[in-house]
């Protein structure tokens, strides 16, 4: 699978199941459709094959019952794309080109949003998560330990393969990764740390790292970060 540039290096996302290079291929097709030249037969066949494969993979995923949130979000876009590509005779008419381009773009944006979504970070390898934070935020173990309210030795144990005895500690670490993963599209490591440690007026001057065990606040922060991304 070709990894999306925005996907996490260890994301177990629906991209793993559905993508098969779809995002990159779709972006190439979108570029073809943005240019005024008529589509060649090869491109038209490619568009139909990509759509059919996506449809089949999606149906397979739906049958498995896994990832219900993703299935809900992606069902409409996959259906619209199928209609725009597989139910259309003349893919080169101006209307068809618009429908096809927007259909591919919607699926791509839905897949990419999912790759950054909350479920992706619900993996339970605390050592891998902690290492990711230390590397991407360029902070010392001491700082991470303070954010998570654990000892430095605890984090080292996780990195050596140990598992958190308290599930709340893992949940806090997952929440930290969720926010940091989104913030890296906005800020370099220093800015991410500043953002996480800055008091928020609406939370009674508590910082993001103070509310890692508050799912409501973390979801609110995620929405605000999404708005800042634009």
């Amino acid at each position, binding site marked *: 699978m070709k990894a999306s540039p925005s996907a996490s290096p260890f994301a177990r996302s629906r991209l793993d199941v559905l993508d098969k290079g779809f995002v990159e291929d779709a972006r190439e097709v979108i570029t073809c459709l943005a240019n005024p030249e008529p589509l060649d037969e090869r491109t038209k066949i490619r568009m139909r094959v990509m759509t059919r494969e996506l449809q089949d993979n999606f149906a397979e995923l739906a049958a498995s019952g896994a990832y219900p949130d993703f299935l809900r979000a992606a069902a409409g876009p996959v259906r619209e794309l199928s209609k725009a590509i597989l139910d259309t005779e003349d893919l080169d008419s101006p209307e068809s080109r*618009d429908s096809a381009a927007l259909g591919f773009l919607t699926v791509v*944006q839905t897949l990419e949003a999912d790759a950054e979504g909350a479920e992706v970070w619900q993996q339970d390898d605390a050592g891998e998560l902690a290492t990711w934070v230390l590397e991407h935020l360029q902070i010392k173990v001491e700082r991470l330990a303070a954010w998570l309210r654990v000892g430095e030795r605890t984090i080292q144990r996780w990195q050596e393969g140990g598992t958190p005895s308290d599930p709340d500690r893992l949940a806090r670490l997952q929440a930290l990764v969720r926010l940091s993963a989104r913030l890296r599209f906005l800020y370099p490591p220093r800015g991410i740390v500043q953002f996480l440690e*800055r008091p928020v007026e609406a939370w009674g001057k508590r910082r993001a790292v103070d509310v890692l065990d508050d799912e409501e606040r973390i979801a609110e*922060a995620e929405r605000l970060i999404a708005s*800042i991304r*634009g």
Partner: protein
Amino acid sequence: MTRRGSQRPRGSSRASAGSVSAVPLGAPPAPRGLVVYRANAHPDAMWSAPSPAGRFNPAGTGPTQYFAEHPLGALAERIRSVERYLGRPLQADDPLYSTLTSHLWVLKVDVSEMFDLTFSTARLVGLTATQLVEDDLGHTQRAGEQYGRLASSFSKVWRYPSAALPGTTNIVVFGARRMVPYDLNPTSRLQIPGSLAAAQAVAPVELAGVMRHFGEPHAGLRAWVSGNVYVLPQPLSFVV
């Protein structure tokens, strides 16, 4: 900076201001449209999937596109959105200001059927002049959903006062759009010519001195209440 009695007529007459009229003989006609700017942190300029919350849309309700008419406007809006999270203003030397990176896009939007939402016309979409630029987005989001997205007969392209850069205006387009090459004439309303102008750009220091920070009164609104027009004191030289 305010100017008394100099308010010019707004609307379709100004829409041609961004059009290119001088075309060399033999060259294809240049794309119509008003030149606008967008700053984001995505690989695409515009949304086809449901977009995050903005001034006229709650999160996830449908694709909505936001543009600024002033080159500083798009970055001002982004800085202000960080301030909205914090609930307080940022100084230019704050890392949350100085290291916020943006992709900067330049696009040409067709504004031939645009609704000019001003302090004077806000009531047409159920808003007061104050609500148009207030920190709380609830009222404008409801107006956007009711008139921009659900009312089929209402214009899908609105010009409105920038809350972040008083004296300038922004454009919101309701619905999915796709970018086509900057020099291409769009063949449908779903296409917007554009190009990426800068990647990983940061806001100039000087912007902090002229933008409206979170919690501050809106100079454009204050001027309008007094019967004046606020003119942005635009910086002309920049620290590089």
